[in-house]
């Protein structure tokens, strides 16, 4: 123990952090086959938890409160699935069948843009070639997605059964399970471990609830906006905007690409529609940045914007979409863990000496 206490606090904190990250990655690796249902359950549970507490305040037991709330939520989800599901599937299939045509139209527009740029600036940039790889990747991704949704019905049913079950136990038993896990900590790091755990989960909880509500609002605003300007597949593009919005800074840019591609793919792209799409995306962003972010998100992550942008780009290039999605919560959590571990290491270095001097 004395050797541990003699290491500089920074090294101690980094060691502790490395161990925690290693355990986290091992857990993610082990849970890989059911990671998606688990993430969905965590999101659902964090949304429903305040409502469960409300029912418990009214005198219901944990089990009944959880059961009642989950039943209502599932009924609503199934209902909206029946309402929007077929339309969404049609739109997805339409998008898939239109994609080669979209690509061709896009290429034609790019070639035109290229010659315009060359004629006016003398610069020779082959945009078609530069974007070829990206577009091919989108095509593969889209095909996989359609195949997944269309033929992976069994998996969807599996997820549909698994998510409510995991959510139910998360909502009802998470305190008991958490306390059980915390009791595995050794005595000398019990209180520190508890403090770090609660700070991390509190922040993650707030973040998850914030981004879910944010995504919902953006999806709604964008769907309504796209519908209003008469864009085809408005619902699909709206939902995609909501999903893309989970990626900070780059998300809004990405969300404008699919509808713009669709318009550019038509025989004679209407400039009015192009401008309208950009306006809808801008309005959704204004709602997000002026109303949603200040009230929901800002307080949940305390990170410098530059750090966020760099983190998202690096995580995206390393781990793809999931990397971009998880970069922010991972960085926010890392900040808390490193700061707390450093504080603890520093206190343990100074603490005993302070006591001796004071005594």
């Amino acid at each position, binding site marked *: 123990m004395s050797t541990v206490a003699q290491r500089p606090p920074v090294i101690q904190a980094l060691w502790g952090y490395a161990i925690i990250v290693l355990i986290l990655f091992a857990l993610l690796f082990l849970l890989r086959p059911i990671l998606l249902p688990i993430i969905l359950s965590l999101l659902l549970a964090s949304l429903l938890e305040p409502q469960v507490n409300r029912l418990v305040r009214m005198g219901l037991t944990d089990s009944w409160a959880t059961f009642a709330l989950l039943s209502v939520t599932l009924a609503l989800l199934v209902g909206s699935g029946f309402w929007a599901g077929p339309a969404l599937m049609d739109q997805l299939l339409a998008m898939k069948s239109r994609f080669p045509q979209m690509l061709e139209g896009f290429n034609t527009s790019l070639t035109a843009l290229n010659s315009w740029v060359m004629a006016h600036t003398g610069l020779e940039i082959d945009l078609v070639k530069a974007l070829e790889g990206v577009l091919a990747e989108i095509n593969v991704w889209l095909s996989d997605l359609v195949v997944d949704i269309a033929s992976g019905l069994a998996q969807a049913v599996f997820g549909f059964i698994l998510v409510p079950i995991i959510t139910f136990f998360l909502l009802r038993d998470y305190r008991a399970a958490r306390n059980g896990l915390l009791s595995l900590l050794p005595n000398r790091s019990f209180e520190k471990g508890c403090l770090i755990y609660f700070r991390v989960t509190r922040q993650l909880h707030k973040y998850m609830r914030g981004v879910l509500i944010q995504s919902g609002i953006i999806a709604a605003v964008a769907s309504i906006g796209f519908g209003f300007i008469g864009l085809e597949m408005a619902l699909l593009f709206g939902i995609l905007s909501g999903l893309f919005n989970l990626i900070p800074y780059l998300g809004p840019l990405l969300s404008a690409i699919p509808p713009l591609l669709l318009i550019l793919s038509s025989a004679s792209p209407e400039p009015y529609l192009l401008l309208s799409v950009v306006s809808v995306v801008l309005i959704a962003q204004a709602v997000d940045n002026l109303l949603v972010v200040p009230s929901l998100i800002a307080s949940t992550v305390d990170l410098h914007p530059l750090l966020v942008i760099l983190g998202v780009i690096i995580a995206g290039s390393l781990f793809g979409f999931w990397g971009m999605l998880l970069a922010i919560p991972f960085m926010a959590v890392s900040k808390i863990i490193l700061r707390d571990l450093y504080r603890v290491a520093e206190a*343990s270095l100074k603490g005993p000496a302070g006591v001796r001097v004071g*005594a």
Partner: protein
Amino acid sequence: MSDSLWGNLFSRNKTWDKQVAALWAQTPLFNDIPYNEIARLVRDMVPRDYSEGETIFSRGEEGAGAALIVEGEVEIRAGDVTLTRLNTGDFFGEVALVLDVPRTADAVASADTRLLFFLQAGLEEWLNRRPYYAGRLSKNLANILAQRLITANAALADKAGS
């Protein structure tokens, strides 16, 4: 203690929970709070075992909550001076239920000891779920801390007078 890991993780000995709830019920912290409510709350607390001579917490460390002595004996020390000796049914560290401040003294198990930790996060969750009773506990806690302030003030006044 011979419980399996699975048993520790997901279920607890109900008789033990009831005994511990009875111990909490006798403390001023749980004045006017029904036994059934305490028994429900105890399920969200964390038990820990310490050997004789083991440090529970040290001065300067951040505290996560209060602890009840279920079995054994605890010494509260400032350096080498023993400030007080606590036994089964006593609790300590209650300032950490409301404030994120460093511990002001050391706590050491002077015999093999079993503690039950009531964490600050547990109190916050209880305030969300059962605000009526958690409110009573907060008032009791304020009473305890105010009483201690009055005693400390009186001691200071005595010292200044003498």
